[in-house]
């Protein structure tokens, strides 16, 4: 009851200066809202990164051929580099912890059907590729062992390639031409759309599966071979690679690191050429988790600073209030207010300011997601070019509100109010009542 009166008195006193109180509340409001927003956005970004890494598979190891530095290449002709088929066989035979292993060859090519053409990636692979890369078949079937073994001229299309080459017809059974090789393949399956996978360090760009056309790797070896020549104007460039990538899946997730070490050891011979790189999504995942934590701590720190600024605002206003109301303090003391009554009175005012800021800040924080989505909609409709120029992270981020951030933000705002209100309140209480009464 007494507290209720103190509270209503505090609110009344604050309403004597509505604009001043509003501005003070604004300080805390911004602080709390920014805690929630920054944490939500960083959580959203790291969720997205984590999802991309997880889509690579936490139980996989990827060994990729990379172009060696130019001083290691022959001046004349084409230098062979990268992974060998023999190495693939060696890994499969010698490493006991493997569940599956997929050899992959990728070539940039043009695909045509009648007068329609798509620039895409020709991927030679084995049947396990679909499962390892989380590709799901929409119609028909993925490459089978038998087709690979028989070196059949069959292909599976990504959803996007199928849509571009066969906008009006069912692609199954139709032919897709590779004009570079005067060659054609029969479509046996179409995949469901799939999101891009994560970039792995500097060695592997984010993979898009949108323009892929999959054929059995044995067929690719037979029909196209290892050497691929590209014509650019009058000059030629070529590459001679047996395999672009070997993806290994390990039986148990606990064996991933040990297996990765084993694989690196087995492929020591590539050290001098620097023409392969080994990527372990599990390590990336762990790294991403650490990064996320650091990111959140950093963001939290930034937000905490803004709350601190808000707190200083409260302290500033309370000090001004105390000076301004010296007379009132004197009257109250003369009429029987104890020091602790005066402390309570001013502390309640500071707490009301910060709690109001806290609650409105939380409300604004909760609207983080719709606000960002709406802003994005608006910008992409009004300035599509600007939007397209922004990095993916900015374009796609979906803020995820960290549930803990709400009580934390509220708690901090309350603590800020009390801590920063305490000093002015104590100063008010310690005034000499006689002097306070005489104050003009």
């Amino acid at each position, binding site marked *: 009851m007494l507290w209720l009166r103190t509270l209503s008195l505090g609110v009344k006193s604050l309403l004597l200066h509505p604009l001043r109180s509003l501005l003070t509340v604004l300080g805390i409001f911004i602080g709390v809202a920014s805690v929630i927003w920054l944490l939500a956005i960083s959580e959203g970004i790291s969720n997205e990164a984590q999802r991309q890494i997880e889509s690579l598979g936490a139980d996989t190891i990827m060994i990729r051929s990379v172009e060696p530095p130019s001083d290691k290449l022959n001046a004349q002709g084409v230098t062979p580099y990268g992974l060998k088929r023999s190495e693939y066989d060696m890994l499969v035979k010698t490493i006991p912890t493997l569940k599956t292993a997929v050899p992959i060859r990728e070539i940039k090519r043009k695909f045509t059907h009648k007068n329609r053409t798509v620039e895409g990636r020709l991927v030679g692979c084995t049947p396990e590729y679909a499962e390892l890369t989380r590709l799901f078949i929409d119609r028909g079937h993925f490459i089978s062992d038998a087709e690979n073994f028989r070196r059949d001229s069959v292909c599976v299309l990504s959803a996007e390639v199928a849509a571009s080459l066969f906008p009006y017809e069912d692609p199954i059974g139709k032919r897709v031409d590779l004009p570079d090789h005067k060659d054609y393949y029969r479509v046996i399956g179409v995949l469901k759309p799939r999101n891009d996978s994560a970039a792995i360090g500097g060695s592997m760009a984010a993979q898009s599966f949108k323009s892929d056309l999959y054929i059995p790797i044995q067929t690719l070896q037979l029909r196209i071979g290892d050497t691929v020549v590209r014509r650019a104007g009058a000059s030629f460039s070529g590459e001679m690679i047996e395999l672009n990538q070997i993806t290994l899946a390990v039986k148990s997730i606990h064996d991933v690191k040990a297996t990765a070490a084993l694989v690196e050891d087995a492929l020591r011979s590539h050290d001098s050429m620097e023409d392969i790189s080994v990527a372990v999504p599990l390590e990336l995942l762990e790294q991403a988790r650490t990064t996320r934590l650091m990111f959140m701590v950093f963001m939290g720190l930034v937000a905490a600073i803004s709350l601190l600024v808000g707190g200083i605002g409260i302290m500033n206003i309370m000090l001004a209030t105390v000076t301004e109301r010296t007379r009132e303090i004197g009257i109250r003391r003369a009429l*029987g207010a104890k020091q602790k009554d005066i402390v309570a009175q001013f502390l309640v005012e500071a707490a009301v300011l910060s709690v109001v800021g806290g609650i409105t800040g939380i409300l604004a924080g909760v609207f983080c997601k719709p606000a960002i989505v709406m802003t994005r909609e608006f910008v992409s409709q009004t300035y599509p070019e600007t939007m397209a120029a922004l990095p993916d992270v900015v374009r796609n981020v979906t803020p995820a509100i960290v549930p803990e951030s709400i009580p934390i933000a509220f708690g901090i705002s309350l603590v800020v109010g009390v801590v920063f209100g305490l000093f002015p309140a104590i100063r008010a209480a310690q005034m000499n009542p006689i002097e306070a009464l005489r104050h003009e």
Partner: protein
Amino acid sequence: MHACSIRDLKKEYVLKSETVRALRGVSFDVPEGDYVAIMGPSGSGKSTLLNLLGCLDQPSGGELLLGKDNVATMTDDQLAEIRSRRIGFVFQSYNLIQQLTVVENIQVPLYYQGKLGAKERKRCVDLAARVGLQDRLSHRPTQLSGGQQQRVAIARSLVNDPYFILADEATGNLDSKTTAEILSLFNELNAEGRTIIMVTHEDEVAERAKRIIRLRDGLLQSDRLNSPESRQAAAERALALIPDPQDDEEQTPTPIPVEA
């Protein structure tokens, strides 16, 4: 029974290594129902005495009894307790709290006793009516005239049933007509048995009290009773200034609405 009893009361201040002896040993008693005016030139120690009587300050020496409470040895919290329970202040500049209404202002001393019931509120409304403000219960101080504000202050001083009303130049800010009204209110209250101690420098005001104590240089200079005749004469002079009650109504300033 004494409302307050003072023995050899001393107060010294230290100002920049210099000791100021504001009160050098003052003794007197105020029996219940008395009406005392304390007078003296500035620097005589009357403000110091007032602060000590009002429990706003602690004496450097001597005894100060309010009723049975020995105030001289109390802590800050205990003094605050005494102020809220047994002392009624009336100040020269009214000292009402701006954000509170008339009734709430009267209630403040009770608030610090933790008494907020309906019974207490009723008492505050009754007191407002007693000082003639029954139509102004939820007005704010800024909406009242000086005289009305001082009436609120008087009602507030009565709310805790004090040992005495301690009035500090209570009429100093008022015109002579309003002064006369307030002083007759004091007279009425005194006639009802209230003890009043009033600090003033105006002889005309002091003449209305039953007794005048004069201070000089921190010592008691004189302590004399006013003859009933001189009190009567002073009261009549004052009464002549008060017009008819009907006129008074008309001249009450209309409340100024507060801008939001």
